[in-house]
């Protein structure tokens, strides 16, 4: 009994410590990042993996799309860089959408952790870089090659030596060379800090391997999720939702089955890939689906290989939710972030008290680009930034939806003053859009109204990737729909919800983000 007791208590303490270690890793990434969407909005994730590639702890920050797809990504790194070839001081990189987190703008860096000369685990992290060349971070491209620089699985750092050839390639293929290189360094640095903290922990607990601890964490978490699943009614439920798509609506279909020890979601019947970059690679589809399941079923179980294991997701090959290479995928978040609503739609029948009505769900990132003359400079410079904004979330059982709040994404909005210091745009308005949340027993959250112009004489480009413009967030259980989003100019020129559009210097862009759906009859 005593040996059992000690192991139990020690493992619990080390588990806590490991979560603190990845928390530190994530903080370093946020504090040192250049990309505003990372440093102001925390669009990142960070985690530690065992030598089998199983995620054992993840920082309690970041975004679900990153987190769960990064969990898969490490398996791909291990295929390309077998354990036996890893050296102390190495770091590996990719931005391959099918081996990373779903689009080229996310760099994933994996670093082997050595303790006293022995490989004991892997740190991985990912963040969203502002520009990676190509057509830019919008859905315009018709294949992935047009979306920018593709970095296959490569060694970024070889036993402490930075791969200068690769760095030069990266710098040469982005509109923002300094920021992009800086962000690459900050990704590598945060893993280094993770390794340092892990070594301290292993010294303190006199460990020479993480394996028993990893088994304990994974088994405990898996069992916790299984217990939650066992408490659910068994059965199969389905849900459909029509969204705007690129230039024609798409009807997503899901079927969710709760059975002994597993929950599976199938997107059978969902439409085929489309010609523009809103397609979703499978890892990203899985990431947001599992996130929706975790919110509804096991919100208090930490994310790791064990807690993810009982959840299964499939989507038909070549569908928009399982897009193959070389489909364009740059704005995969637009559809990906709708998937928790699909999960909630399925679960509304068995669990009406746990799930919200549909919300805005996809981020309303205002991706803009152009030339300007910053203060004190007489040469024109390129700016390219994404200003993160949100609509309302769906009404919740017993609670109204949240106004102007990201869900399911975990990012923060961009401060207007920070956006304006980096580009010539000026926001004339950013306010709550009153009464845009759907009515019901509980109301959907309100969206926002924004009016954006420029202070200079150059036009600017909008890389639109907005949804719920033609198809609003629907109310549920008798609640009313939220207001649809709107994209236009102040003079009434209607703009497309998706695609590259140019605004003249005297035009003012008007964006109204959608309201969330209401819940229950008024």
């Amino acid at each position: 009994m005593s040996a059992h007791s000690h192991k139990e208590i020690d493992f619990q303490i080390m588990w806590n410590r490991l979560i603190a270690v990845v928390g530190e890793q994530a903080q370093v990434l946020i504090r040192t990042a250049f990309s505003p969407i990372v440093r102001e909005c925390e669009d990142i994730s960070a985690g530690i993996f065992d030598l089998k590639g199983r995620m054992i702890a993840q920082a309690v920050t970041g975004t679900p799309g990153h987190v769960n797809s990064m969990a898969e990504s490490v398996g791909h790194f291990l295929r390309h860089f077998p354990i036996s070839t890893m050296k102390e001081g190495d770091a590996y990189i990719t931005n391959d959408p099918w081996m990373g987190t779903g689009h080229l703008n996310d760099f994933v860096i994996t670093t082997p952790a050595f303790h006293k000369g022995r490989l004991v685990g892997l740190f991985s992290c990912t963040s969203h870089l502002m520009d990676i060349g190509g057509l830019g971070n919008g859905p315009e491209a018709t294949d992935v090659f047009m979306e920018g620089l593709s970095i296959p699985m490569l060694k970024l750092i070889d036993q402490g030596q930075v791969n200068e050839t690769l760095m030069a390639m990266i710098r040469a293929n982005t509109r923002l060379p300094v920021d992009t290189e800086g962000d690459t360094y900050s990704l590598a640095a945060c893993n280094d800090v993770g390794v340092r903290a892990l070594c301290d922990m292993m010294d303190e607990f006199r460990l020479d391997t993480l394996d028993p601890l990893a088994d304990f964490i994974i088994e405990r978490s898996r069992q916790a999720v299984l217990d939650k699943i066992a408490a659910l009614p068994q059965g199969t439920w389905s849900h459909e939702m029509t969204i705007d798509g690129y230039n024609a609506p798409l009807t997503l279909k899901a079927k969710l089955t709760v059975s002994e020890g597993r929950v599976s979601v199938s997107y059978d019947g969902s439409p085929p890939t489309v010609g523009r970059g809103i397609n979703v690679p499978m890892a990203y589809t899985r990431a947001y689906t599992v996130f929706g399941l975790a919110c509804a079923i096991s919100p208090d179980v930490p994310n790791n290989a064990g807690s993810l294991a009982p959840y299964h997701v499939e989507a038909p090959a070549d569908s928009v939710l399982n897009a193959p290479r070389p489909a364009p995928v740059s704005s995969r978040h637009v559809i990906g972030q709708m998937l928790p609503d699909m999960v909630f739609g399925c679960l509304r029948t068995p669990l009406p008290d746990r799930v919200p009505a549909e919300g805005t769900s996809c981020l309303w990132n205002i991706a803009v680009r152009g030339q300007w003359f910053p203060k004190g400079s007489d040469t024109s410079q390129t700016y390219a930034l994404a200003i993160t904004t949100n609509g309302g979330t769906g009404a919740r059982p017993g609670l109204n939806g949240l106004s102007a709040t990201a869900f399911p994404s975990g990012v923060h909005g961009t401060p207007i003053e920070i956006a304006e210091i980096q580009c010539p745009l000026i926001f004339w308005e950013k306010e709550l859009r009153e009464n845009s949340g759907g009515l019901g027993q509980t109301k959907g959250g309100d969206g926002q109204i924004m009016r954006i112009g420029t202070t200079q004489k150059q036009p600017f480009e909008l890389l639109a990737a907005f949804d719920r413009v033609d198809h609003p967030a629907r109310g549920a259980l008798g609640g009313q729909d939220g207001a649809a989003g709107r994209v236009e100019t102040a003079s009434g020129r209607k703009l497309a919800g998706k695609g590259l559009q140019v605004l003249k210097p005297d035009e003012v862009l008007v964006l109204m983000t959608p309201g969330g759906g209401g819940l229950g009859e008024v």
Partner: protein
Amino acid sequence: MVDSTQIRLAADIGGTFTDVVLQTPQGRLTRKVLTTPSAPEQGVMDGIGLVIQDAGLQFPDVTVFVHGTTLATNAIIERRGARTALIGTQGFRDILEIGTESRFNQYDLMLQKPSPLVPRDLRFTVPERMDARGTVQLPLDEQAVQALVPQLRDACVESIAIAFLHAYANPAHEQRVRALLQEALPDVTISISSEVCPEIREYERTSTTVANAYVQPLMAGYLGRLREALNAKGFQGALYLVTSGGGLTALETARQFPVRLVESGPAGGAIFAAQCAERLGENRVLSFDMGGTTAKVCLIEDGEPASSRFFEVDRTARFMKGSGLPLRIPVIEMVEIGAGGGSIAHLDAMKRVVVGPESASSVPGPACYGLGGKRPAVTDADVMLGLIRPENFAGGSIQLQPDRSAEALLTDIGTPLGLSAEMSAHAVYEIVCENMASAARVHAAERGAVIGEHTMIAFGGAAPLHAARVAEKLGIQRLVIPSNAGVGSAVGFLAAPVSFELVRSFPMRLDDSFSSEEVSALLDDMTQAAHGLVQDDARTETLHTRRSAFMRYVGQGHEIIVTLPEGAISSDHLSALRAAFEAEYARQFARVIPHAAVEILNWSVSVSTTPQKYPPFKAAPALHDAKSGDIRKLFDGATGTHVDLPVYERTDMGPGSRISGPALIAEKETTTYVSSRYNAHLDGSGNIILDMKDAV
């Protein structure tokens, strides 16, 4: 050195008790009285009356009175502040409500955000607009301002916050609106963002300005009444308020910027530790303050507590980052977690032992109080392990019931995990110590400090029982439990300097565009303003000015603070500034970034008097073995057996008394646990010093 003729008085209003400390040439006297929430000045005056009487003195004898209070914090948490209006830039009525657009808990579908201090119907806007460079893009519409006057009057507004976009870059519009409104509404207090918090990022700046306006009438009223009450008793000395940054400020400045008084109590604790650090001659210190519901840790390097410019008040999910209202003010940076004697332990979905943040408080209290508490608290674990003598708890005022601790521990922890009551207690003790060690580790990591090189100074009711284990986990060689630890905050107040820190956003790159003239003008202006706020009150004391720059690589969002040299900053200094920045950057983040440009975002000027100096603590005379009293049984989790634990009475121990852990040092209010890894002795000033035994 302390002016030996001075009679200094300090008072700290806490939630339950008001602590009063009187420092006279003859020594230090302390008093604890109950806080009187409806009229807090009453409790203060009562406490002062008592302690002055104890000393055989009169009010006119007191030269300085230093005062700290949680009134501002409580007013915000309990939403008891003034009826406040917010005036913003047209088109930006909802900055407070839109906030960061994020959820502080990723997986919680039911989370609730804190409600803003100003509801929508009291949020107004006027046409005006500055751009990021401080250029007027839309002139202020003065008629629109005038048109607000009747609305503000009808709404019975008591206080107004004005926060315009980019006002940190050009305050002209805010100043003009204040002038117009002050004339029309002379009884209303007005706060403007360019004075309260002239820093970029509209949400934090607005939130800080609104909080200032919200507590202003209340604090002004309280401070006015206190001053009157003191005057009526014949007090003629100087009155200072303690700020969250650990400095003192005069009444008038406190009235103008009351938001800076939030969190002054914990700041006092950190100053207390800093003062002890100096008297001990320790340069690197970790202060560890553990009470009934929370534990706070703070790093103190070279006698100075770590400082920060960000703080969250009223976190809706206790201690969860992002769930509170952000304040951008100078604060002593500390990490606070829900770990105290009353913190409740339970199992989570993974059957992991979780301690806190929920607390048993004083009612019903831990299970062993026998007052109806059924759930195991940290104190129950301490009792079960044998660390607390049930018959002597809190000076014998509560008779503890160990069998109730055992029952609660078994029911909630032991039975589901297959552990004995003792082993469950061990788990709770270990987890709570790990949580605190972890908080210290994170805090150190954020500051780039090596924790094991620090000396721990532990105070607060529950600290002495847990400090040794936390210190072991952190690899700390020496820890000190000072005397007077119970009223540490108030004692700390006595040592604080009069000071004021100003910070302004003014981006400037370290390249050819660096304008020495603009920077000099800015720094001179700020220095003058800060001097103005300190000078009158500092009387004849010498003032110290410290200037620093908040630097980062161009494009980054977080800054590193670098101290500026004295005199004008010219382009000759740029390479030295870059080198200083990169040295600090590499220390914190492992790698510097080649090719990247460096900029200064914010400039800071801090003006202060010299902190009160106290003589060093007396070293212990020749060490001699202390006389042990009773023997208690301690459950040793590592071996799973009970071991003998000698108990020493602190009152029986003289300077130089030495003991070898494991042992307990008992006194009236608290008990110190000396773990087997440490030796302990009393120094010449009555502090308990624990030194790690030589590594085996």
